[in-house]
């Protein structure tokens, strides 16, 4: 929030610096006064003047200042929650990861992804939020405010990124054991790059090319991974866990917990419980180290 990359965050950051300056001045005045009266023992003041101090400092000054702040923030609220201008991103909170769908055309079909949010600069994108099981909250600090994801309810917000870059988002509503490990990567791109990426994301998974990846795919199919995960263009169509079609092109693994590397994938497959307590993903520690590596290489290659 201190280094904003979106319109809303920038407004709030400016608001914060103004309020901070005011707060510091007020704090120094009030406590200076307190120090002065308790330590320096000034001349006694008349009770009449004291009552004027209470009226001025306690009622008139705050009533005016607060009214000004309130007017500013009330007029800012509709702008920060304005309806998006085109792209709709639907995000659903799971324990403890994010189901993501991009809807470039609200009447079309979605492009399914997970655990990463990509947004274009220069436009306000609509974010629709939901959750299964428990309450989560969706927050990208550098872009703007957060909104809760509540089972049985649809909530919404919108974001207007202004700076290109890689950022981090995180769940901010306590959602159980691995609440701390429910984050996601955020990639903000120029509208052209975003469009290109979205087209790529809509395609089916690339087929493995080298022998190790092909072995990895065999293990993937043979171990029943497809019961929970989907890899479009293959037999894996599970909906329980994150979509893996373009796993390798994401910036993080396990919802912002690990880097997207082969060794991190191996660690994750071997013992998810250690890396993310309570995760539903079973451990694949019965696979031989070589098989694990092949599986990891295959998954990393799903770009």
């Amino acid at each position, binding site marked *: 929030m201190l280094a904003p990359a979106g319109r809303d965050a920038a407004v709030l950051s400016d608001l914060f610096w103004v309020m901070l300056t005011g707060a510091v001045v007020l704090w120094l005045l009030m406590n200076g006064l307190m120090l002065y009266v308790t330590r320096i023992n000034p001349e006694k003041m008349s*009770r009449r003047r004291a009552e004027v101090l209470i009226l001025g400092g306690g*009622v008139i000054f705050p*009533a005016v200042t607060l*009214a000004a702040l*309130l*007017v500013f923030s*009330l007029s800012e*609220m*509709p702008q920060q929650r304005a*309806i998006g201008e085109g792209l709709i991103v639907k995000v659903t909170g799971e324990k403890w990861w994010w189901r993501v769908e991009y809807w470039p055309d609200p009447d079309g079909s979605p492009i399914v992804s997970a655990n990463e949010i990509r947004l274009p600069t220069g436009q306000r994108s609509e974010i629709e939020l939901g959750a299964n099981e428990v309450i989560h909250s969706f927050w990208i600090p550098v872009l703007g405010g957060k909104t809760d994801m509540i089972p049985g309810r649809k909530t919404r917000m919108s974001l207007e990124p202004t700076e290109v870059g890689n950022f981090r988002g995180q769940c901010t509503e306590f959602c159980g054991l691995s609440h701390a490990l429910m984050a996601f990567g955020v990639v903000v791109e120029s509208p052209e790059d975003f469009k290109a990426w979205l087209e790529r994301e809509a395609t089916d998974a690339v087929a493995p090319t080298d022998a190790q990846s092909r072995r990895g795919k065999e293990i993937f199919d043979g171990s029943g991974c497809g019961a929970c995960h989907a890899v479009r263009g293959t037999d894996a169509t599970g909906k329980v866990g994150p979509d893996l079609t373009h796993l390798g092109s994401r910036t993080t693994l396990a919802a912002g917990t690990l880097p997207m590397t082969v060794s991190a994938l191996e660690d994750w497959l071997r013992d998810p419980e250690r890396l993310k307590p309570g995760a539903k993903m079973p451990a694949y520690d019965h696979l031989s180290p070589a098989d694990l590596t092949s599986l990891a290489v295959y998954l990393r290659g799903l770009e």
Partner: protein
Amino acid sequence: MFDRFQRTRSLWHMVAAPLVWAVHFVSVYAATSVICAKSAATGDARAIIVGLGLLAISVIAFIGWRAWLQRDLDPDDPVVNQATDDHRRAFLGHVGLLLAAISAIGVTYVSLPAIFIGTCQ
């Protein structure tokens, strides 16, 4: 019986203004919730909020005026710290007046959203 509840002795009169604030607050909150949930006619909600705000302010002004009359302080000795009926009466009036002022500020603040926010979203 009425002697028990006479105005100059009543704590209820002292807190009348904040009670109006509370009733006003609950009313605008309930009205907004129902309108936003059942009809989404935000224009109605805004009109109702402004109307309720004006109504509440008038009632509070009336209460404040009565409290002002009851207050009736001696300008040379505004501290009502004597064990007399007069001082107790003026004290309750004074606090009632101050509470009316705070309640009026509260009602004004709570009515502001209707001016700046036009949607239920």
